[in-house]
């Protein structure tokens, strides 16, 4: 069927950071995009601050939507889909906000659930990969929005697991990064928050490939292309390239980023938060690269409409609900088939995070219990590394192993002293008159030794670069695919 005979449709996504329009000639598995425009309205900013969408933001949104509808009609769109997501779901005045849009446009607005949002995003972000036959058997999609982050894993084109995290780039910016550019301390706090948050997340299967979509991911890619000369054909960002972006965004104010690298000011302001979230997610999944897709929820909605017609939304909500029920069963089944390498990436990443989670606590106070827990975590990590010795990139493996071994040794030294001190103090409680001075002398010698050991441990932990360790672990698996 020739392209001229295909219907033109439009989708407008009313999100937390942006209102985004896509107009396309539609096939069930392909889109010929005629227009792709966005406005950084930042409705989520108002919701984060007051719980409601302000009148000013509402007026702004109505103007943008009217402008986009006119553009869609000029391009011949026979259907216009209006979709509202996370920020609107959170707003206490969402009903009146949606009513105002419906009155102005004469069209219904679909306030979709987090589950449907994940399904649509997955369709949108991956349709080009599947169509080109480049999609791996297992992959993940992350949609970094302003108010939330959707994470989806899929096996052979079917969603196996998904989660909607209530953290987005706008959200992180508003809470953790008030300065422009964000200070070192602000970034460290945001990073610590993200690591703690993501560490507690149970991810049943780690995808070997992660596709990122959303405005921040695409703007970061554009920034890397313009600032660091990334090839335009390379639709990906490595962990190092993201780290460079974060460095640049920490060095220059948003106005200068906007001017030098052709980014809208409001977007440039959000980008440091986006870089932090994507880096934290990569580390959490033990990956060192992101594929970047310019497509997302809007394209997903257009494809869904083309596949299911006017029942597209109920079909997508149904798929989300089915996934919810069968998620556990599906992941259990897939976990049994998981390869040794895939299991290892998940295992080692989780074990490393567990060990590192004690680092910050220990640097605050070298508490006996924390030392013991971190030592146990380091030993479990070593046991996991021992199982994979010889099956990962040797150079990266050696670096990780050496650091973990040294950490374990220093923790072990303090822990051994703690155990000896505890035993001697127990003996002291029932010591005879001649044993008592001997015990007190031994305790004094050991306490002095422990102080020295704690100093050496603290110095090591201060210098232990968690980010480098995470990157090295991810590098252990680079190129080790089945």
């Amino acid at each position, binding site marked *: 069927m020739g392209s001229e005979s295909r219907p033109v449709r439009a989708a407008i996504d009313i999100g937390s950071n942006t209102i985004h329009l896509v107009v396309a000639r539609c096939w069930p598995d392909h889109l010929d995009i005629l227009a792709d425009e966005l406005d950084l309205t930042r409705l989520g900013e108002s919701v984060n601050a007051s719980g409601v969408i302000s009148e000013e933001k509402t007026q702004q949104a109505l103007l943008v939507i009217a402008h986009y509808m006119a553009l869609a009609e000029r391009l011949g769109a026979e259907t216009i889909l209006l979709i509202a997501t996370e920020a609107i779901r959170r707003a206490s005045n969402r009903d009146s906000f949606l009513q105002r849009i419906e009155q102005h446009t004469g069209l219904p607005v679909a306030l979709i659930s987090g589950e449907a949002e994940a399904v649509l995003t997955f369709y949108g972000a991956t349709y080009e990969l599947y169509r080109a036959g480049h999609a791996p058997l297992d992959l993940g999609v992350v949609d970094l929005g302003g108010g939330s982050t959707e994470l989806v894993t899929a096996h052979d084109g079917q969603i196996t697991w998904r989660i909607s995290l209530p953290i987005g780039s706008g959200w992180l910016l508003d809470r953790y990064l008030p300065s422009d550019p964000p200070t070192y301390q602000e970034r460290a706090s945001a990073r610590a928050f993200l690591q703690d948050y993501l560490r507690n997340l149970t991810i049943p299967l780690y995808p070997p490939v992660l596709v990122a979509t959303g405005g921040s991911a695409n703007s970061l890619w554009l920034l890397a292309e313009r600032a660091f000369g990334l090839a335009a054909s390379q639709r990906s960002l490595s962990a190092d390239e993201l780290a460079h972006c974060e460095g640049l965004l920490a060095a220059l104010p948003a106005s200068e980023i906007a001017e030098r690298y052709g980014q809208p000011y409001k977007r440039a302001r959000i980008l440091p938060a986006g870089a932090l979230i994507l880096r934290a997610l990569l580390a959490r999944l033990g990956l060192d690269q992101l594929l970047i897709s310019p497509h997302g929820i809007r394209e997903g909605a257009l494809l869904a409409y083309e596949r299911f017609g006017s029942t597209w939304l109920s079909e997508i909500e149904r798929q989300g609900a089915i996934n919810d029920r069968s998620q556990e069963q599906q992941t259990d089944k897939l976990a049994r088939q998981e390869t*040794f390498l895939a299991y290892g990436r998940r295992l080692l990443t989780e074990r490393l995070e567990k060990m590192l989670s004690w680092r910050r606590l220990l640097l605050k106070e070298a508490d006996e219990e924390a030392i013991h827990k971190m030592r146990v975590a380091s030993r479990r990590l070593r046991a*996991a590394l021992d199982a994979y010795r010889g099956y990962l990139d040797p150079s990266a493996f050696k670096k990780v192993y050496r650091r973990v071994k040294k950490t374990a040794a220093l923790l072990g030294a303090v822990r051994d002293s703690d155990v000896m001190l505890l035993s001697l103090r127990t003996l002291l409680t029932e010591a005879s008159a001649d044993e008592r001075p001997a015990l007190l002398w031994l305790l004094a010698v050991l306490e002095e030794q422990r102080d020295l050991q704690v100093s050496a441990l603290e110095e090591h932990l201060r210098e232990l670069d968690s980010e480098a360790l995470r990157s090295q672990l991810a590098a252990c698996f680079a190129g080790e695919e089945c």
Partner: protein
Amino acid sequence: MAKAEPIKDLDPCAPAAHNARLIALQRLEELYHWSQAATNPQDVESQHHLRIAVKRLRYTLELFQAVLPEACLAVLPELEQLQEELGRLHDHDVLLALIKVALTEQQRSFEGAEALLSLSLLKALQGTPLPLRAGLRHLLWRLQRERAAHFQAFSQHWQALEARRVRQELRAILQSQESAL
């Protein structure tokens, strides 16, 4: 403790379950390599190696428990108990070494102490004040008696595991699951 032996002949692209069984089988054999530790109370070195080997097997079963046959996880409480018993022996060995070094005349080394105590601690223990020596000898005697009792408890537990053929049972579970693949 010798470094953990690399596991040969794993297939990184095979299911994790297949490889986990091979790793657990090797760690099980490594553990029984040090079984003489249970018969000779004076064999401190073997007891130390056995303690580490128990820990390695325990961690292996725990790290891969999602893909190992459930039946083999029944051995975990036994391994934890063994680890505790051997840990108590080790703690006593360290304290005994500490006191022996403190009682040893300057410039003379005590055999085996360097494996249990750091060099800086060995140095700090030199020059024990003379009036403390009698008290240290009493402590040494007390700790040796305690250690003997702890060894007895460990040895009895070990023998009970041998009688129950725990090793053979675990090996059979790991092997039968493997051949069933």
